[in-house]
């Protein structure tokens, strides 16, 4: 039982990171039909922005975290929206998807060439102190990841459902034409979505890097897992992405411990196949029917 709890908490902490990245997939898809295959790199880049601020310009740690989030919102939010998505979305979903794949390569190679190909240690906000409760050892840093991720998710849900801007964003996601008729500033709402996505990706980056090290290739697996999490949970629901992320984090650990370490990577993909076969809208997603 102790082992199970240990696996569960560790899995939830990892899963929370997947969830933060997966939410981005669903947000962008809902408001602008953008599938962002550079999402993994969006989670990799902010850690390096913080490292550049700290090591090249000597900015204090906390200030460089704030700077990294702001720079990410500018670079991965505003610039991404207006330089890549804006001009390309008019040409259909496929050219945009291919462009995001190209963007992922560009970001990865840029970090490799301009910073380093080697993994970097990343300072942590919370100390690595161990807390042991009923035989379960959890580091404060790991609990912090889980707490920050969950608080971010709760705040996001509150923002989307409880504020006027959030409801306008939802209206834009559900039907941009009607939203525009009702006076919702659709373009601005779409930009907000990109900003939120960039901020969430930056949060995930700053949370995950102290534990798993910052490396230019981190986005490869993270992006793939977050994509699978979004599909498993439901691509058109934020809560689906959260559930998908947490589920895969936990499942990965449980599969490694109780099934086989050798086949741990196969388990999320088997889950993906099962979901696509039996519940294509995802575990918490809603059915979408589009007029042709």
């Amino acid at each position, binding site marked *: 039982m102790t082992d199970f709890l240990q696996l569960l908490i560790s899995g939830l902490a990892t899963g929370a990171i997947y969830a933060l990245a997966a939410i981005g997939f669903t947000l962008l898809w809902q408001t602008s039909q953008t599938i962002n295959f550079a999402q993994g790199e969006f989670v990799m880049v902010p850690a390096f922005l913080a490292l550049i601020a700290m090591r090249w310009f000597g900015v204090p740690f906390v200030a460089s975290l704030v700077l990294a989030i702001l720079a990410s919102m500018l670079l991965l939010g505003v610039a991404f929206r207006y330089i890549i998505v804006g001009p390309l979305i008019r040409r259909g979903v496929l050219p945009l998807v291919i462009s995001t794949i190209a963007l992922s390569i560009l970001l990865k190679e840029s970090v*490799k060439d301009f910073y380093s*190909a080697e993994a970097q240690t990343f300072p942590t906000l919370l100390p690595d102190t161990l807390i042991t409760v009923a035989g379960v050892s959890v580091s404060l840093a*790991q609990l912090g990841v889980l707490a920050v991720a969950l608080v971010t998710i709760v705040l996001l849900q509150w923002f989307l459902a409880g504020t006027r801007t959030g409801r306008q964003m939802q209206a834009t996601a559900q039907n941009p034409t009607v939203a525009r008729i009702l006076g919702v500033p659709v373009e601005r709402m779409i930009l907000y979505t990109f900003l939120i996505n960039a901020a969430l990706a930056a949060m995930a980056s700053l949370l995950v890097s102290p534990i*798993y090290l910052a490396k230019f290739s981190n986005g490869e697996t993270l992006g793939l897992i977050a994509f699978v999490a979004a599909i498993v949970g439901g691509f058109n629901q934020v809560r689906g992405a959260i559930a998908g992320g947490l589920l895969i984090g936990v499942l990965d650990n449980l599969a490694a*411990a109780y099934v086989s370490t050798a086949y741990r990577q196969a388990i999320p993909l088997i889950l993906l196949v099962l979901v696509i076969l039996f519940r294509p809208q995802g575990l918490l997603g809603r059915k979408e029917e589009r007029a042709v």
Partner: protein
Amino acid sequence: MLRKTLAVASIAIGGLWAPAGFAQDIVIPNIIELSGGGATVGAMWKNGSSMAVEEINASGGILGKKIKLEFIDTASDPGKARAAMQRALDDKPVAIFGPIYSGSVSATLKMTADAEVPQVMGGEAGPLTAQGSKYLFRTSFGQNVSMPKIANYLRDGAKAKTVAVVYVNNDFGKGGRDAITKELAARDIKVVADISTEAGQADFAADVIKLKGANADAIFVYLNEEESARFLREAKKQGLNKPLVGETTLLGQKVIDLAGDAANGVKGHVGLTVDAPVPAIQEFGKKYEAKYKSKPDHNGVKGYIAPYMIKAAAEKAGKLDGKAIAAALHGMTITPDKVPGILIEATWDDTGEIDRISFLGEVKDGKQVITETLPKLKK
């Protein structure tokens, strides 16, 4: 008249110097892991080999010719390594350096054998030199040499009767796991847990829980650099209190830097290290650190000795010819008094396997400390 003389002179100078400066350089392709999972090892190798080539060129080159290294990225992918090797061999080089990852070496060794070009590589998987290539040469111990030493240490040093093995699921890891399992069985040591992990794996919670459950006398950890660091951090977090024993990588400087406190207490066998009690190697470590602002690990040393191997063999053969260089290297012993760049006396046998002294060490206060020097296998 003056103008004519100057024109003739300039043509003569141009004709003699310019083409001579470029065409006579020996180009050695370095097909290594500059990105992907092996980027850390590739960067070390690249720096080490560049340093050696600068020194060799400054002292007159090889048989009067300068060396130029050409770096080609395998992206840590055997398929890309193979394609890069094909392109490199089309130019008929005198030698090839790399790859470092065993999987990529395995995918390319037949190509260099067919082209009769010596391949000085960094792979450590046991089976690489057992495939009959007359052109493959190691810069570090193969697992067939290092694992018996580790098994002896587990039996005599750690006094283990049961061992848990955790390895990375690639050619390097599986080769090591097969070799250590065989060696442990020969010493009546029981393997009570056999845990496979993935390259690039981030979360080691489940693996550490399984290791705790196995309750072995010692744990043999055989992972690549970053995964080693993540594993050590998780092991410390969960309070895994069994001796952690590794081979070279686990005690490497990169792992120590990345794992921080969690690396303290790790023990094992070290094939190559700049902390070895050998003045030449320590001197190399200082020069490298001054130049690249980071401490080299064994991959830096491996990259550094590769050009010196070719230099010594070419000078023994008396010509810059791949076939002659390979033939000269077989059975050759290179000593630091004749070739200082080789750092430690080393011998290559007919299969390209290397033999030299090695070390037992442990990590204390964030530093690798060598506790014992093991002799060469064959005198």
